[in-house]
């Protein structure tokens, strides 16, 4: 497995105040590997250190200690950072670009920063405008765009230099659900089409589960747990929750059991059952109830998500 990013013992402390007395440890000895071509999620609550980590990988924040290799290049050597900056790019939630420039002019400006000549730049800009459905906005100034369109532009700009790594800092934060879904669709499409490594920060568990091959939970500047979303759910014994309420006169037997059962709590006619996979276990439960003549009043299914993992390990 070839690694796109290799981080070892990364630490960062911010020093604030006039007499530089206030210290906030943003990252504490973080180590992580990001395989080439993967989507790696960095999850955690606000202030956990996600953006700090991403900014260090982007080369705009210098750590106090630690090493980062990006495709084998030492990011914080003078030569290394120049090379890495050519094939890395970033897109942030709460997108901000030069407000007085149009979409197309912003593309040109950021394209020029990567030394892309006029002919190649025009070609790429046309491609990105098409891919990100920005055609009707190309001559609109940034300040006049809607939040969703700004976000699409921010994402599109991250591909202007044909990068090998794209850093996505909360790409759907503050967006309406339909716009967020669209952004996630674009990320997936791009990942499929091009062999790009993505590192994504989010506090949206559903988003991470949908997009990421591997996730790292960061809390108080430390990576507390990492792994594939499915493996993590298994590791933390987290499954789908089936909530069943029976009709009057029917009760659950206290020794109710089915295969794949992870947890159960029963209170007369009400049960909250946690199973490994609801799509397999639910038909089994229903068949059993039919056989036993038990009638269901209400049923609810809650799919397990990474939020449960987060709650579980932060306890």
């Amino acid at each position, binding site marked *: 497995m070839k690694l796109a990013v290799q981080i070892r013992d990364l630490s960062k402390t911010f020093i604030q105040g006039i007499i530089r007395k206030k210290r906030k440890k943003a990252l504490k000895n973080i180590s992580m590997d990001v395989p080439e071509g993967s989507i790696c999620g960095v999850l955690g609550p606000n202030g956990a250190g996600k953006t700090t980590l991403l900014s260090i990988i982007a080369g705009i924040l210098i750590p106090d200690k630690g090493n980062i290799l990006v495709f084998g290049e030492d990011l914080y050597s003078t030569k290394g950072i120049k090379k890495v900056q050519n094939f890395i790019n970033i897109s942030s939630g709460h997108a901000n670009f030069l407000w007085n420039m149009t979409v197309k002019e912003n593309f040109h400006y950021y394209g020029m920063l990567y030394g892309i*000549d006029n002919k190649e730049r025009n070609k790429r800009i046309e491609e990105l405008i098409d891919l990100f459905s920005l055609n009707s906005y190309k001559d609109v100034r940034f300040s006049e765009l809607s939040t969703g369109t700004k976000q699409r532009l921010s994402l599109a700009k991250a591909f202007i230099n044909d990068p090998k790594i794209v850093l996505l800092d909360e790409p759907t934060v503050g967006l309406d659900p339909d716009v967020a879904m669209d952004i996630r669709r674009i990320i997936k499409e791009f990942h499929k089409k091009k062999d790009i490594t993505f590192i994504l920060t989010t506090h949206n568990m559903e988003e991470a589960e949908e997009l990421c091959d591997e996730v790292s939970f960061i809390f108080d500047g430390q990576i507390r747990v990492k792994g594939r979303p499915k493996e993590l759910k298994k590791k933390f014994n987290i499954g789908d929750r089936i909530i069943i309420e029976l009709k009057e006169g029917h009760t659950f037997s206290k020794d109710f059991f089915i295969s794949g059962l992870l947890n159960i709590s029963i209170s007369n006619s009400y049960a909250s059952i946690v199973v490994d996979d609801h799509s397999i276990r639910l038909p089994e439960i229903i068949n059993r109830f039919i056989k036993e003549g038990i009638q269901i009043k209400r049923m609810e299914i809650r799919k397990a998500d990474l939020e449960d993992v987060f709650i579980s390990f932060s306890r």
Partner: protein
Amino acid sequence: MSSSAFRDEIVKTNAFLFKSWIIAKRDIFGLFEVLFWPLISFLSVGFLSDFASLSSDMKGFILIGVISMNTIQVCQLDVAYVLLYDIWSKALKHSFVAPIGIRHILIGSMVVGIIRGGIVFLILAFLSQLIFHFNILVPDISATSLFLSGLFLNAAIVGILVSILVLTIGYKAEVAAWSVVSLMFLICGIYYPISILPHWAQIIAKTLPLTYFLEYYRIFYGFTPSCSDVLVKGCFLLFLYLILEIYIMHLSLKRAKQSGMLLKLSE
């Protein structure tokens, strides 16, 4: 340097030229900076000189000063604003994620500054002849070019200083874009020879290259400079400050990346 590396340098430099140009042409206040304020200050001083019945020599002395001042003021704003544009748009980090150097930022913005400063110089030179019958182009083309280059590089010194302050203390440095240059004008001999300043101010004036460039150009109008070799001293100080400032700007950028200021300026 290979031809592709050279092309790369040109394109990156052009990015800042492009940005400054687009913003300058869209900004209505930009028009004020280039035309309104320079004209107001030039005409006020010119009419005041007429009202005070100054001799043509004295009027020339003051008009050289006021034309130089406005040329520098307009030119330096482009360098001073190059990072401020990004900061006001909260987009600074996106520029520094890209593989650019300070040279690209400074040269690109300086080209726009020279164009705008040059326009101001030509407009005021024309009006000076037309309204006040004073010809600022008396010296030959090489002396005028040298003088103008000096003005533009003095503007660069002020602009870079503002950028250093922006990277070091952030938004608060905004005010420096106008005030640093005003302080310089106070003691460099724009409206009066530095000999009338208090002794301590004369010492400061002699550490500023603009003082020598103004004295150099006024020699062609019959004024005696405060010392010999004014051009050599002016050029020496100019290049010394430029080298020092570019070095300090590199350090400021590194420090901004260490302290998180670069991120803070993008939020």
